[in-house]
């Protein structure tokens, strides 16, 4: 299969590889996919106020999955949570010129963003409750 130049670029020079402290209250972690399906994405965000100030990822999957998650971290850095939530998989498909068999990679990247934000919001809600009780 021929990969687009942008997929190859992200695969060869993935942006924002790594991990943030998942125990931190300002970090949201999303893990989506499953090993037996051949794709697992972990995407993490560091949030200040309602803005994503840092993002990291690690992905087990094909080149398109790695590129989709790498691109996702690049796009969400600096965005507000609402702006990040508005990112759709079709934008990733378009940017990376993914073929139809690889569309699920972009769906997974969108899911990973949403899962990380959801985790962050749940943490915040949890600590608010905690503070309220205290």
């Amino acid at each position: 299969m021929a990969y687009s130049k942008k997929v190859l670029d992200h695969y060869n020079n993935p942006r924002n590889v790594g991990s943030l402290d998942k125990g931190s209250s300002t970090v949201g972690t999303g893990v989506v996919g499953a090993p037996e399906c051949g794709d697992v994405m972990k995407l993490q965000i560091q949030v200040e106020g309602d803005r994503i100030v840092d993002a990291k990822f690690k992905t087990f999957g094909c080149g398109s999955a790695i590129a989709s998650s790498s691109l996702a971290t690049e796009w969400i850095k600096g965005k507000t949570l609402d702006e990040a939530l508005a990112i759709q998989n079709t934008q990733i498909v378009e940017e990376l010129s993914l073929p139809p068999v690889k569309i699920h990679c972009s769906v997974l990247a969108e899911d990973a963003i949403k899962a990380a934000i959801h985790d962050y919001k749940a943490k915040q809600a949890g600590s608010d409750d905690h503070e309220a009780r205290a």
Partner: protein
Amino acid sequence: MKLPIYMDYQATTPVDPRVLEAMLPYFTERFGNAASRNHRYGWEAEEAVEKARQQIAALIGASPKEIVFTSGSTESINLALKGAAEMYAEKGKHIVTSQAEHKAVLDVCKHLEQRGFEVTYLQPDKSGRVGVEQVAGALRADTILVALMWANNEVGTLNPVREIGALCHSKGILFFSDATQAAGKLPVDVEADQVDMLCISGHKLYGPKGVGVLYVRRRNPRVRLVAQMDGGGHERGMRSGTLNVPSIVGLGQACEIARVELPAESARTSELRDHLERRIFGELDFVHLNGNREHRLPNNLNVSFAFVEGESLIMGISDVAVSSGSACTSASLEPSHVLRAMQVGEDLAHSSIRFGIGRFTTREELDFAANQVIAAVRRLRELSPLYEMAQEGVDLKSVQWQAPH
């Protein structure tokens, strides 16, 4: 060193220059039809075909009269299985094969099931091998044919052909073996191994593509087949169609070279394979051998690199031409049916690579390939959330994965 390095010798092999040289005159000055009986052109072609028949028969211990030329193993398999099933349907309608066979065998079996035959698909053990006791246990009064491959094309595991042959002969059941990967790599002797039908493909042993043979036993027992290609009655009526003389000459030459050089070549390729295996297992953790360490082809190594996905690994080793054991590059996104039959977990099945070593593989190429593979696996593991979790001591099997797709 020519890049990318070719390490997919189970998929196909280049034509040996000595084979090409033998073929060339039969495209031009000796272009006759081997079935033309009235002139020198025909006689020359027929003579060349008969010489090839002898060269091929010699490789597998058969008589030249037992060699039927076809277009390759897929056609040979179709002729053997459908031809025997049709011929012996009155005797019984049960066939025994294995889940790890090539798609050509499995699809022909499915076709026969639609025609009223019953097929038992034996499950191989975790190394891909079918046991003779398993075969014995599956045989019935109405079993007419056992079809089990000599060597598996993905993992290189060998079946106990000789024991299965003896069992089938003791019960009067025909035994077909797909020897596409084995012929020329391992000693094959249809008499000692008691095989009744066997297929060989030219392009797997440094001959041309589009030519192969079906060996059909003529004595003890005499195997009869219903032709699947009707026409001029070539090949003793079993396969009509003008013989592809240049390719047949090439296949003959390829078999002769394979027979003469087999001991040296098999020792050389297995030494290279072992070197590659030692490097991979010595320099990486979480590596699994797919196949059987004892009973295997000398030139095949199938390995799963845990926590790394096969397609991304192949992308990372673009200077090495190998195949992923999983068919992820196709639209199906299904891991290989062979690894599944061997009960390799789906996660590991997604991470498998088949390395094929051949006549033209050098030690220098092999070390280059090993370096590239080891570096790519390390890099991709740095990217892999699964590797990180494994190192943190998380049991991946206990994780509740979210997999909506």
